């Protein structure tokens, strides 16, 4: 049991650290030191000021909350901190995915059609992804743990 907790503590710490680093990188790119960081599967950059800077701050805070709850995560008060950190990453990832859906249902300004083709819609979800979207599946473990706690 102790070992399991240790693994979950380390796992939470790594996710939190990854969130913090990607959030800070986002801010560095926004400040103009780098143009864009593109590593194939994920990209840091963008032209939407609000989504970029505000979203990065939320990811950084999410990372900090994940890390602050990592130690003794089996305690409910510690887990709730990490869980809130994970929720913050879901918020940024979820709104990114929602924005992609909303932008790609219509056919686009130039097209005479109203709706995008199915292949056009699906291709919009190809990589690269924003860091929060990459982190999303790794944070789903916190949802599973939350529901287990709630049921108990």
């Amino acid at each position, binding site marked *: 049991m102790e070992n399991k907790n240790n693994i979950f503590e380390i796992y939470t710490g790594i996710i939190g650290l990854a969130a913090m680093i990607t959030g800070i990188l986002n801010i560095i790119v926004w400040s103009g030191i780098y143009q864009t960081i593109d590593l194939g599967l994920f990209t840091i950059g963008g032209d939407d000021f*609000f989504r970029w800077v505000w979203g990065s701050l939320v990811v950084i*805070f999410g990372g900090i909350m994940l890390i602050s709850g990592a130690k003794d995560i089996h305690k409910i008060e510690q887990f709730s901190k990490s869980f809130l950190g994970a929720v913050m990453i879901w918020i940024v990832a979820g709104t990114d995915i929602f924005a992609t859906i909303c932008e790609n249902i*219509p056919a686009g300004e130039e097209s005479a059609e109203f709706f995008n083709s199915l292949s056009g819609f699906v291709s919009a979800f190809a990589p690269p992804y924003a860091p929060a979207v990459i982190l999303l599946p790794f944070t789903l473990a916190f949802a599973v743990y939350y529901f287990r706690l709630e049921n108990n």
Partner: protein
Amino acid sequence: MTTPTAKRWEIVDLIANRTVTAGEYKPSIKDYLSELTVKPLTGIPVALAVLYAFWSIFSSFAGALVTDGFMVKLFDNYWLPWIQNVWPNPDSVLYFLFVGDPLADNCFEAFGMLTSGLFVSIGVVLPAIFIFYLMMTILEDSGYLPRLAVLMDGLFHKIGLHGYAIVPAILGLGCNVPAVTATRNLETKKQRFIMMVLLAVFIPCGAQLGIMLDVIPETVGWVMLYLIIGFCLFGFILGKLIPGGNPEILIDIPPYRRPALQNICKKLWVKTKGFFINAIPFVLLGILFVNVLYLLGVIQALADLFAPLFVTWFGVPKETVGPLIAAFLRKDLAVAQLSTIAMTPYQMITAVVLISIYFPCVATFVVMLKEGVKELAAAVGVLAVIVFLYGGLIHLIGILLGVA
């Protein structure tokens, strides 16, 4: 005959002793989450995330999906050419009032009641209002809104308000009409007056925000920054100057709950119906009224009269005076008009901030009137002073920075 207070407390104790059993309570995960969302250290980052979600979903749905994705195409490619074809005599006054510019190729710039008026009400504001109220209802029913109120209480108390002022403040970002009505939830006359003035001056509505994001996206961040600073600055001053009480917040914080779909649908229907009845007729009639004023030369006369003030004091070009005067009835379209005028980026920021802090739109004006003639007159006086001072201050900052 009334029971003395001490006697009443004795009765309360007696009932409590017989009915309440004290036991050990083991806090659940929801209790801890509830506490974390109210404590400033963890609550403020969560509030930042929730407001980010609010903003992002609002702009994705209302902007990218409905307005830009479908409504622009529907109105510009189908509605505008059709109405330009079927409406007789493009040189007539009626054509100018209802269809607007016969050469316009989009509803945005046509400025007729049935072109720009319908596009702004149905194509821009309605989707914004729909998604805005949906998000507000979810926040309210989930139990997050009272927590946000508690969290904001410290800041709002510095400006003569209390935490629940966050409700009209957020509502105002959708439409100032229900926001002014929501100020009735505040406890004292002082709080209601300050909130009404701050709403009318510093909170841009959904229609204006939508058009700002569409037409001048690179400027919106700076405009919002100026508005937030102005909100806090003048809130603080009004809080000090206006006599009256500002009692501590006392609200019941419900537990977090999953919102019920039926409740969401009901609330959404009532609020959206209210918008159809209260706001859409005002937008349409407002455009008609401004077009009549244009025809009679009133807008031009006012523009000439106020030109020296705008050019010298506010530091914006003379051409902006027309849109700024007309902003009383259609702030959103005034932003669109400004975007076509040649200006430096700083002048553009100043002009858009001026449109935002300028007198509220006619619909808000009517709702403020319902709150009382005296209150409206006082609010208008304070508004005029704030616009004059803050507009001049922004110009001064520009001069000091060497960009004005």
